[in-house]
């Protein structure tokens, strides 16, 4: 399948020896008491109370226009972190990511403001993504209908803290999906919401794929990877364990997880 694009292999995303390190405050082992904290400060100077999590370790790959790439790996293997780094949302510790234009990350956990109404969140989310007021006004009803928030009454005018977790996730996805994207990354979005919403979002993702140059899809569902992707990156403990055609990689991955 990759051969189809052999003629015009234009790279859209290049990752070059990418390392991502999270710094977590207050996660150092040991007692959390004040004296323990004080002695840590005295002893360590620079590293007081900070623990580093090396989430992505030296990943390199090149993604081309027209490719749909699946990202697999067990929980905590660094898939979401890698996507965030490609989107430029997480700074790299070492190495670089080069991208064509501005990649967009479609996640279910795009944070919104819980103390504001759903309506305000739609508007603010759109403005933050760089949409104009007119574009938001045009798409507003579409976003609300797509999210299905108002199916059980007028919930869009209530603060988001009153939403169930499923409702909030649906609204977040709907806002993020409202914009057209160049390089598109989808983080387990297919798992969001009830069956009806899943169907709607799958259709929207297919639409977005046709407009986007390159699509990344993170999923634990091997079937949806097989359906949508021709190439798969397999991450394990932050390292790229395998990169190749979907069938080959998934075969190895299934062998690995069956153990």
């Amino acid at each position, binding site marked *: 399948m990759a051969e189809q694009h*052999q003629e015009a292999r234009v790279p859209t995303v290049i990752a*070059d020896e990418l390392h991502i390190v999270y710094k977590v405050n207050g996660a150092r082992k040991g007692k959390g008491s004040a004296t323990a904290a004080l002695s840590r400060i005295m002893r360590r100077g620079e590293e007081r109370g900070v623990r580093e999590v090396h989430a992505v370790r030296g990943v390199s790959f090149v993604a081309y226009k027209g490719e749909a790439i699946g990202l697999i790996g067990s929980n905590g293997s660094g898939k979401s972190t890698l996507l965030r780094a490609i989107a430029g*949302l997480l700074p790299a510790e070492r190495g670089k*990511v080069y991208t064509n234009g501005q990649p967009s990350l479609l996640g279910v956990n795009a944070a919104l403001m819980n103390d504001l109404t759903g309506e305000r969140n739609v508007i603010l989310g759109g403005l933050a993504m760089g949409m104009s007021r007119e574009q938001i006004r045009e798409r507003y009803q579409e976003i609300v209908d797509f999210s299905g928030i108002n199916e059980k009454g007028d919930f869009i005018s209530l603060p988001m803290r009153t939403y169930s977790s499923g409702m909030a996730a649906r609204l977040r996805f709907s806002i993020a999906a409202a914009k057209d994207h160049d390089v598109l990354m989808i983080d387990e979005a297919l798992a969001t919401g009830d069956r009806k919403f899943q169907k709607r979002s799958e259709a929207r993702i297919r639409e977005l794929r046709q407009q986007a140059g390159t699509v990344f899809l993170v999923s634990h569902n091997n079937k949806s990877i097989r359906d949508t992707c021709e*190439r798969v990156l397999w991450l394990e403990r932050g390292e790229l364990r395998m990169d*190749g055609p979907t069938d080959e990689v998934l075969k190895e991955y299934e062998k690995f997880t069956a153990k």
Partner: protein
Amino acid sequence: MSESTHDGPVAVSPRPSPDDGLTAAELAAKYGLSVSGARPAIPAYVRQLWNRRHFIVAFSRAKLAAQYSQAKLGQLWQVVTPLLNALVYYLIFGLILNAGRGLPKDVYIPFLVTGVFVFTFTQTSVMSGVRAISGNLGLVRALHFPRASLPISFALQQLQQLLVSMVVLFVVVMVFGSRPSLSWLLIVPALLLQFAFNTGLALIMARAGAHTPDLAQLMPFVTRTWMYASGVMFSIPAMLEGRPGWIADVLQWNPAAVYMDLIRFALIDGYGSENLPPHVWAVALGWAVVILAGGFVYFWKAEERYGRG
């Protein structure tokens, strides 16, 4: 690095391509790819911010509206909170400690209320600046926008809050005998300069707070010390009589005191220019320009690093 040198047992494209042998940087340059999340130059950054102006305004309004959304009295607290503050300071400093010496009573109360409101504007800008990035990491990690939008938006929220307080202030000032006059128009440039100063301060605190969240615990003490040193509840020259003159000069030229004095001078009839330090407008302008420009550059220098945990 070309795509044929992956880690792992399977290489994607065995077929030779003209791009083989190029390093990642060369390949990126060839196809016009740019580094993801790289910091733009200052002119481009300013342009990006300008494009997000609707977001900045909408965000500040939404935050303002949401601030008291869980309280029964709702938005009324916007007015009541600063009034209660002024009342507490009047009880302690005005009545018990008699800090108002050197000023007649009908000047002291508007003097105190103006001071509290104007200083609160700077104080809350600092405090919300500290949390602008560290308190919105979810937003920073989820969406793309120039990060300076957040501290600027928070400073703008405080400006709107102050405008509500100003209505209360007008009433207080008039109750104590001042009448609206042309000099009231001076509060417009004074508040604009203070807003510029506060925005710069919020930008500085946002970067510092993103790196060291502990500042949120420390800053209340710093701002309180600053408040007591700036003559919010007493007249600096009257209080420091008999001390070396330079102490009063330093205190009076500190930005918080400068902006407070400008607003007092504009609003209160009995508070004449003899209470102001020399060259006060130049000092006000200087602080605003230096802190805003410095804070903006300081914040921008770490633009690509916000969002790391």
